[in-house]
């Protein structure tokens, strides 16, 4: 049998089993992958093509990269046998409980299963209890505390569920789903190590439960932890690894994994969105925009990940496209945190920062751990010059994810705005620590060193050098380096950097005041050095400009010509024949 057919069979069984256990998110994920598997051209049926037609352009785009990713294909995966259900026929109580569960009456579902002994029933009972506790927790959060404040409310069912599941695990009468739930509970109780072990057990014996992988991923905060996991080499592991690499900011590794997966699951929206995410981190906005356009064409009612699309549109300042997107998600589901975030982005682009804050607040009300909403809200407050509020918002983001470099950067900016550059340095340092390859951060830090209050030029230059080394798009760094060196009288270095800057500007075909400045400096420099030919080259280039530049270039050129012909020319000028 074909490899892809194998995947298909496994996924189909998994969807059934996951749905039976009411693990809807995981089953949704598996479903997306199932239809995402590319069909062999020999036997595709018209019914399938309908879905596949739309994504042709994106496929074309990725075809080129597929060549690189093929080598992984040599890997042989362990095949995990599809799990046999212990109860072929579901009990009546189980059916009842599942109906209750589907109607979101979790306690009732748990109660209905109180005396049932089967593994499936036990799992559903515990899971229902867990969800009931979660629901109650959310409600209590609203009752006791402001929705955005911190709180110490915990799920009250955790203790009893943990006790029960740990005895099952000791007896060996626990199935992979039970292990997953056990891991979840342990994680929430703060016992990360045991949770990791349990989750690894779960995914090793039942790899198709994406929820379990996700929980495991959230516990892998460093590469060392990731390497210490002993995972079976199932094909699901590739999805997991790609996801983990992305979270650990190992973008290249992640991208190659996704490219490989894309070769198999060619029509998977999930993989497309993930690729977009990685490319977004690499700041390839045009590419990301294309991917999202395709995605929306195939899956017009998708809300997931659309906040990132809106970020891209924001960065490219496409306000009409952004408004279209906002309207679309608003009509689909207005009470999704992503929707609110998109609307917030739209208002922010329009300069209506108060309204933007309002929507970011709403997003946070819906999901208080929504990292990017906290950060974006911080940016809005910065725009509104409400620095203390910005600081607060950024701090919240850092509480959620201490390695969020955007929030650290925002904090630094806030303090710099308040005229505390030395204090801000601490935050910039943090930010570059987490994202050392982002030139913007280095430039911001250099700027901080350069302020009148600190005036630590040497440190600023060091930062600019770092920025210049990590692909500084706006090429602020080179220009600044050249200027600073010129100010300090280090002419040789200044010339070096001006030339380099010039090369870049030529490569990128950019014009502007920087160009003029560079050309003038170089022309003057070579004139002083008596290298008149070179000086003349730069001057002639300056002649292309109109306005005062042209006049200045003219006079400069005249001077050069005069000097070139030697001192007597001066006399000739002065006393024309």
């Amino acid at each position, binding site marked *: 049998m074909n490899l892809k057919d194998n995947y298909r069979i496994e996924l189909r069984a998994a969807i059934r089993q996951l749905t039976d256990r009411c693990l809807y998110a995981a089953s949704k994920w598996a479903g997306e992958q199932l239809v995402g598997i590319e069909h062999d051209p020999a036997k595709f049926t018209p019914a399938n093509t309908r879905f596949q037609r739309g994504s042709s352009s994106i496929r074309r785009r990725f075809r080129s990269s597929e060549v690189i990713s093929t080598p992984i294909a040599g890997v042989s995966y362990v095949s995990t046998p599809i799990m046999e259900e212990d109860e072929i026929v579901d009990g009546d109580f189980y059916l009842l409980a599942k109906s209750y569960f589907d109607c979101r009456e979790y306690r009732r579902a748990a109660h209905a299963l109180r005396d049932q002994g089967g593994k499936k029933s036990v799992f559903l009972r515990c899971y229902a209890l867990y969800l009931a506790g979660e629901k109650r927790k959310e409600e*209590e959060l609203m009752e006791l505390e402001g929705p955005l404040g911190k709180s*110490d409310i915990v799920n009250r069912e955790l203790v009893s569920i943990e006790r029960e599941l740990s005895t099952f695990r000791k007896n060996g009468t626990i199935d992979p789903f039970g292990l997953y739930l056990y891991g979840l509970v342990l994680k929430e109780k703060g016992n990360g190590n045991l949770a990791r072990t349990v989750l690894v057990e779960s995914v090793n014996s039942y790899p198709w439960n994406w929820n379990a992988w996700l929980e495991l991923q959230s516990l892998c905060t460093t590469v060392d932890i990731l390497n210490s996991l002993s995972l079976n080499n199932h094909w699901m592991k590739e999805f997991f690894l790609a996801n983990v690499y992305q979270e650990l900011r190992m973008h290249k590794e992640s991208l190659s994994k996704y490219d490989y997966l894309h070769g198999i699951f060619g029509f998977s929206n999930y993989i497309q969105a993930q690729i977009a995410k990685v490319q977004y981190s690499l700041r390839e906005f045009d590419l990301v925009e294309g991917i999202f356009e395709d995605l929306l064409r195939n899956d017009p009612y998708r809300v997931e990940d659309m906040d990132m699309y809106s970020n891209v549109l924001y960065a490219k300042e496409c306000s009409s496209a952004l408004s279209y997107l906002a309207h679309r998600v608003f009509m689909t589901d207005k009470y999704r945190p992503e929707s609110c975030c998109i609307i917030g982005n739209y208002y922010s682009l329009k300069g209506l920062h108060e309204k933007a804050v309002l929507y970011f607040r709403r997003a946070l009300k819906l999901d208080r751990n929504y990292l990017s909403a906290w950060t974006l809200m911080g940016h809005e407050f910065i725009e509104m010059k409400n620095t*203390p509020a910005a600081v*607060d918002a950024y701090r*919240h983001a850092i509480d959620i994810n201490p390695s969020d470099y955007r929030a650290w950067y925002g904090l630094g900016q806030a303090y710099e705005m308040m005229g*505390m550059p030395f*204090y801000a340095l601490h935050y910039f340092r943090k930010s570059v620590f987490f994202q050392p390859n982002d030139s913007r951060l280095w430039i911001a830090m250099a700027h901080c060193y350069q302020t009148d209050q600190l005036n630590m030029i040497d440190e600023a230059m060091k930062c600019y050098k770092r920025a210049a080394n990590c692909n500084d798009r706006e090429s602020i760094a080179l220009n600044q380096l050249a200027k600073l060196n010129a100010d300090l009288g280090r002419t040789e270095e200044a010339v070096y950097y001006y030339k380099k800057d010039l090369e870049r500007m030529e490569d990128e075909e950019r014009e502007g005041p920087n160009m003029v400045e560079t050309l003038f400096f170089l022309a003057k420099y070579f004139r002083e050095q008596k290298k008149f030919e070179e000086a003349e080259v730069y001057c002639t280039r300056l002649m292309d400009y109109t306005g005062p530049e042209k006049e200045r270039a003219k006079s400069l050129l005249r001077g050069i010509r005069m000097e070139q012909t030697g001192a007597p020319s001066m006399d000739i000028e002065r006393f024309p024949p």
Partner: protein
Amino acid sequence: MAGILKPPGAFQVTPHKVSVCILLQIYAPPGQVAVPFPFSSADHHNRFGLFLLALTKSFDDIFEPKLDDLIHQLRGIGGLVNYFLIDSLTNRLSSLLSPDDLFNFFNDTRGVLGGPDVILEADQVVLDPNSNLGMFVRRCVLAFNLLTFEGVCHLLNSIGAYYKEALSSCSPNEAPQLDDSSNDLETLSEYENMDLENFVFEKVTEEMEARQRAGGRVSFHLHAPKALVGLVEDIEVPADPKLKYGDKLREGCHYAHPPSNTLRDLDPNGGLFLRTNWQVQGFLQEQADALEKQGGSFSLNDFELMLRQLQSLAPELHRVHFLRYLNSLYHDDYFAALENLHCYFDYSAGIEGFDFVPPASVSDTLGRFEIALLCLGMMHFHFGHPKQALEVLTEAVNVSRQQSNETCLAYTLAAICNLLSETGISCTTGILGSSYSPLTRIGISLSVQQQLFVLLRGSLKRADNLKLKRLVASNHLVMAKFDLTHVQRPLVSFGPKASMKLKTSPVNVCKELRLSSQLISEFAAETSSMTTDGAFSTAWLKNLEKPMDLQVLSHESGGSRPSAFQFCAEPSPVPASVLQLVGSSYLLRATAWETYGSTSLARFNAVVHATCFPDVSSTSDTALAYLKLIQHLAVSRGYKEAFSALKIAAEKFLSVSKSRILLLKLQLLHERALHRGHLKLAQQVCDELGVLASSVTGVDMELKTEASLRNARTLLAANQFSEAAAVAHSLFCMCYKFNMQVENATVLLLLAEIHKKSGNAVLGLPYALASLSFCQSFNLDLLKASATLTLAELWLALGSNHAKRALSLIYGAFPMILGQGGLELRARAYIVEAKCYLSDPSFSVYESPDVVLDPLRQASDELQLLEYHELAAEAFYLTAIVFDKLGRLEDREEAAASFKNHILALENPQDEEDPLIDMF
């Protein structure tokens, strides 16, 4: 919420408050006459009322007491009716099963209040709505009425948990017994009477350190709420907290157990009994004070653990971060301190309960980040990064000006002054270039000292204008320090050149010191409004409990009954921080007198500090006072006594200021080794000192000079004159560069000594004279006397025709030397005196032998006490010669034998039995 801080917590209904309401209903049942049912007499009834008053007053513990605790307290109070009280309390609590029960309960509770229109019948018990108890009831009822239905459900749940917990922990055999309370009292009194210091000194075992920590903690337990004590300690919380104190002191080994069950204490319901923000802040304030005072004696991890739990219980409370910062600061964890400091100010924006008076300006809502800068500057200062500190403080100056936060500006300037006066910064240009100074703006460059002076004056004036009394006082102290070590010169730019008086002025120092001490009288005049309310009322309850128990006892024995109302807690009217400041002014006085050369006054002031301010001042300050006293002992009584005193001090300040005590120990050892001629040991100790002075943990100029001074002296003792001179010379250069004038005088004197010993008296003379002039302009009287002595020795070395001049010099210095000098100085003076006479050709031994013999005897006695072999040998040698001349052969032999002993001891220092060698 972003940017908006929560107001101090509101009054909330909690299970404990419900219990108190139940008791109040028993206390004042509606419609009852005179003494209600269970109480035997009006007095009994009143006592119960007083207890309730205490309970309502103490509602601001961080955790409210559990039902167990309440029951236990009731047992102590109720006497014979305690069964009834406990029973009705538990019954009533257990009957609250539905929200409706709660509604009815609070309706009933309202009934205990007398309305304004009720006509009081005689003897009827009705609570005045405006009394303390009445207010409490009204607040409870109001808070309940404000609750939403969800809130009522929460209250009901927590009452259930509260009641269930008490049931499960109350074992059946623990029935109330009459002797229980007396038992309790016994342990309590034992605890009260225990002299902690004696306790520690008695049992110097391996557990010393642990015990010390326990001892240090007790004072803070006195104020700490009980439930928190449970958090801090690794022992399970027993029903009786007082009993636990006794236990802990009796068997300190509890600390050996790893904290296994602390986390268990943190049950999910714990949060429900959390008290309001405002009250926890009071507690944290107290802890912060304790931390700043006792520094290293807090265990890093224990305290951190407690703070972490507190943080998870009260995440809104940002001050916890500040305490974590303090904790890591005092344990020298730079990175953690930095993290936590930034964290605290990010969250609180500097608005949360700082000591400052919030100004009524508009900028209030925008955060007070200048305070963050001030704190960061202090942190860098603490870690010994003066440049960063200056940078940050300069920024703080700028920001506080922008925000027109005058108070912070004053504090920042004071901090800069402190920084400049304490750390040696040779050059501020470039660092302080853009900083605060009106003169730099005119374009006049000032020396660091002048800049400091200008800053000091400005800061003092500002503080005075803002009426920041404490700051004024501490500014006066810094000013006094400045006056002590700096010659006042008119600033270049100010007016016509005034007459240059090139002297320090002790009068100014004295004046500043006095001005700083006036603070205490100003505070004593005020009321005690400064104390944090939280701390106050906890102390109040603790105080009240004690007499209650006593009275129960006396009541049962039928004795006289003291009025219960006399036990109003009266905290000291002067806040501790003020006392601390006053204490450090005494310490500065001691230092000043030491510099001016009055040992007796210096000792007196150190004694005052050590005896009057040990409770309020920081441990390092107290250690400093002890240190001064020990140094004095060593100089005037010899090493034996000094070392025994040092031992006591080392035990007392075990963990705190280890380095300071260590330094003293090394100094004493070095001095002693030099005197005994044990050069190897001296060198070893010297190397140790060098390690201490290395710049790993920041630069301490004082320590650095001390180390190289001692190095030079060791080299001198080893007769390596050129090396010694080189070290002394470089030291002089350093002191000159950093403007350390007092040290300059000492170094010059040392150089003179070196030349004297190398036999180059002519070269020594200018150094001695230079040192003398330094001493004169800085009023260093004792050092001046010692320099005079050296000068005399130098003259004498030039030949016998200068003996008269030397003698007159010595006579001039004698009053100072004999009055204030130590053993060594006196002995030296005596010997030189004798030598002068002996080398004077016009003097005849036969005519007046006692003129020579008396000083020699004095000298040899004192030197023997000091074990200074070299000089002692010299003294005995001279004595022997004199006796020889006089023909007193027996005396001569005796002196010669002593001479031989000392010479032998000097040559073989290792052979000697040295009881103190193991100190090293």
